[in-house]
């Protein structure tokens, strides 16, 4: 059973990969079918994982008091035959979990013309806390970067660091100048800085593009290795010794 299961899962993995890569040859129904299959599986997996890993153990199981003895009793005591079920009375406060659940479910009223105001309340709440988190997150993320952008142009006893800092500062100033749209870039000094900023941006885009190619190659390597180490040997195992 296990061998058959492994064979079919690995086999299907290879067929799916070939189907997706068949797009490189040309657009075809084989590719299209597996693309839809992938989207469906990814969505289904997400829902099941959410239910199995979060909603069931963290919400439904405690609220419904299902399997409370295994949830709360140390396994070694269970192994010794201890029955601590009565020692763990149902916590009625857990029912408060249902309040945010019901509130969140209000989002689904968005399809109702009569009750969609409830969805708007939920959305307002989401926007409110999202905005608050983003505000806090912005400062935590960007303030250290702004601070670190103030670099000494001359680093004693280190020509390399000094050069790095000069290049960094010049790049920062030129690129920021390019993105100043409040005035014309026709003044001497401003024009050169703006043009340099555009060139420096182009260089950085080149770096991004090169890195993107490297990433895509890496993904292909992983699939090739799958074929070499799992897919083809799978057939060899089927053929037997």
């Amino acid at each position: 059973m296990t061998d058959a299961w492994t064979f079919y899962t690995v086999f299907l993995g290879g067929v799916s990969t070939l189907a997706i890569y068949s797009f490189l040859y040309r657009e075809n129904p084989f590719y299209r079918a597996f693309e839809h299959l992938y989207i469906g599986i990814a969505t289904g997996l997400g829902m099941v994982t959410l239910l199995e890993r979060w909603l069931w153990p963290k919400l439904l199981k405690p609220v419904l008091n299902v399997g409370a003895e295994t949830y709360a009793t140390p396994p070694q005591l269970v192994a010794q035959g201890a029955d601590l079920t009565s020692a763990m009375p149902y916590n009625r406060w857990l029912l408060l979990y249902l309040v945010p659940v019901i509130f969140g479910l209000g989002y689904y009223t968005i399809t109702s013309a009569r009750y969609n105001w409830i969805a708007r309340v939920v959305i307002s709440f989401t926007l409110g806390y999202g905005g608050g988190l983003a505000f806090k997150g912005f400062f935590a993320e960007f303030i250290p970067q702004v601070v670190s952008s103030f670099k000494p142009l001359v680093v004693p006893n280190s020509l390399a660091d000094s050069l790095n800092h000069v290049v960094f500062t010049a790049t920062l100033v030129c690129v920021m100048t390019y993105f100043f749209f409040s005035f014309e870039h026709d003044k001497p000094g401003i024009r050169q800085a703006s043009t340099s900023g555009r060139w420096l941006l182009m260089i950085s885009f080149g770096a991004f593009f090169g890195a993107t190619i490297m990433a895509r190659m890496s993904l292909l390597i992983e699939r090739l290795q799958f074929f070499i180490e799992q897919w083809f040997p799978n057939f060899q195992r089927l053929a037997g010794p």
Partner: protein
Amino acid sequence: MSEPGGRTFHERLMKVDRRLVYLFVLLALTVPLLSDFGMHPARMETAQMAFDTVEGLPAGDGKMAWLAMDWGPSTRAENEPQTQVVMEHLMRRRIPFCTFSITYQAEPFMNSLPEKVAADLNRENEAQGVAYRYEYGKDWCNIGYRPAATLFVRGLAKTKDVAGYIGVDARGTPVREIPCMSPVRTVRDFSLLAEFTGLVGAFQIWVQFFQTEDYVPKFIHGCTSITIPEAFIYLDSKQIQGLFEGVAGAAYYSKLIKGDRFDPVGHPDLATKFMMSLSLAHLVILGLIVVGNVGLWLQARAAKAKRGEGGRP
């Protein structure tokens, strides 16, 4: 210069079927994988920084490492070797760690990857006559996937009772009963945060929220090649203390861990094999870029000659 069929060399060059290019790249990627030949990876300063950060962590002080495996099949090629080498390093140093993810697609890897690393190290210990065995619960635990990433991470950083906050691990065992997690109370008990991802925004969540007003754990980051230029901003501002630049960073880190045992010629590991393929593919792509530009140059020269504006008549 016309050739049989009436098409010039540069015309043929500019009309090469793109599928032929794919075939060249495919061959360049496959050949190194089929051979057991590898080369020593180039020195990477950023991976060295990551290594030094992990190497500098005190072992046996009751603190843990938090491994955020925010990746799935789509970026497995780069993030898996990165995660694997950090796990190996932590295990060798006997620093317990827990795996966690804000993406559900990481679920199977959070289970299988530490098991694989532990099995390899246990085999090595047996061969060397070392009695120590790496086990779940003692050396690592798997928290699993949790939704609502931002809220969860923020809550984790603020809680005074990490075990109570997390509840149960991926196997359903209460975290309080997992030996390696028992000394953990707050975020201060995590000496290291290692985050691996190719997802947009995932890394930023950890930068923004996995800290308190007076405590920020050491932070190393494994990114996919696409986001390397962006990740340098965080390295420059010292928000992270080490970086894996795609699979290349993992290959060099692997060399640092293994030291004298690192044998790329004959026994290349996963990351080194990947690097060989990648390097050869890059050479092919560079060659193709040169060929393409030569074709363009010949075409432009021919057009100029045709217009009679210069060049050879």
